[in-house]
């Protein structure tokens, strides 16, 4: 249990600092809503039509692809830190992980998932 003390202390301090900043700025900050200020910012023009509800599907696919490869990189951080103790086993493990995602990447690239149109 002892080794989790420092990480939890770090989490608590982070929460406290962020919470304090947010609370102070909402409480102390002046609030002065005016009709023009509430309008969305359109480079100075009064917007005529509201934001479009429906977006092309391309945005969604690219966002998903990004998530997949971003999470892959997130897994590498703890692996990189603990590579010393893991030794050869860790290296082979991560290589397999990267190869699997590499195949997926090549497939997506081939199918043209990365281009826009």
């Amino acid at each position, binding site marked *: 249990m002892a080794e989790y003390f420092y990480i939890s202390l770090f989490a608590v301090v982070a929460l406290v600092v962020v919470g304090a900043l947010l609370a102070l700025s909402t409480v102390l900050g*002046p*609030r002065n809503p005016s009709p*023009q*200020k509430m309008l969305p*910012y359109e480079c*100075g*023009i009064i917007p005529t039509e509201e934001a479009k509800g429906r977006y092309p599907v391309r945005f969604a696919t690219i966002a998903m692809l990004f998530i997949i490869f971003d999470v892959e990189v997130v897994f590498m951080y703890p692996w990189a830190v603990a590579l010393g103790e893991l030794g050869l086993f860790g290296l082979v493990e991560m290589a397999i992980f990267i190869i699997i995602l590499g195949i997926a990447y090549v497939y997506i690239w081939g199918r043209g998932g990365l281009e826009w149109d």
Partner: protein
Amino acid sequence: MGLIEDAAETFEAEVNNLRLNVKDTIEALDHEYAGSLYDTVLTTRLGKVVGWAQKNALWPATFGLACCAIEMMAMANSRWDAARFGAEVFRASPRQADLMIVSGRVSQKMAPILKQIFDQMPEPKWVISMGACASCGGVFNNYSIVQGVDRVVPVDVYVPGCPPGPEALLYGVIKLQEKIMAEAGTDKAKKRVA
């Protein structure tokens, strides 16, 4: 006999001046509150600290209209370096800016947009009217130019020149900082936020 009328006239003008000044001071007192702790907590001492913080982080909104915009860019560059005074970060959207440098001539078609951008800036906000065209129409006194930005937005500092050199604009920014420091903690600062 002309002398007496002149004297009476100037005296009456003086009285008129005083009446206007008195009206201003009264108006300054009963401002409506910003509806937050901001007014009650900010005594003079803490107000000074807030003013010091605001003074040293004036983020200008890029409102480059004409020739003065080029000199404004020169001010933000390495030779004149507005970063020494905290005014280097040019925010594109008015939401994150608290200083609007109106640099260039404002035409009739642009005036409502200038007003819209100024309204969309969060309080407290300041305006520097850079150049003769923004301050009083400059050399263009015709149908298309708004003769002075103070018809559209309340201006804090006027920078003369056509275009004013980057050092003149920096002097304007410094003058604005002095004004912020002088206003900090007083009723004027609270009125500016209300």
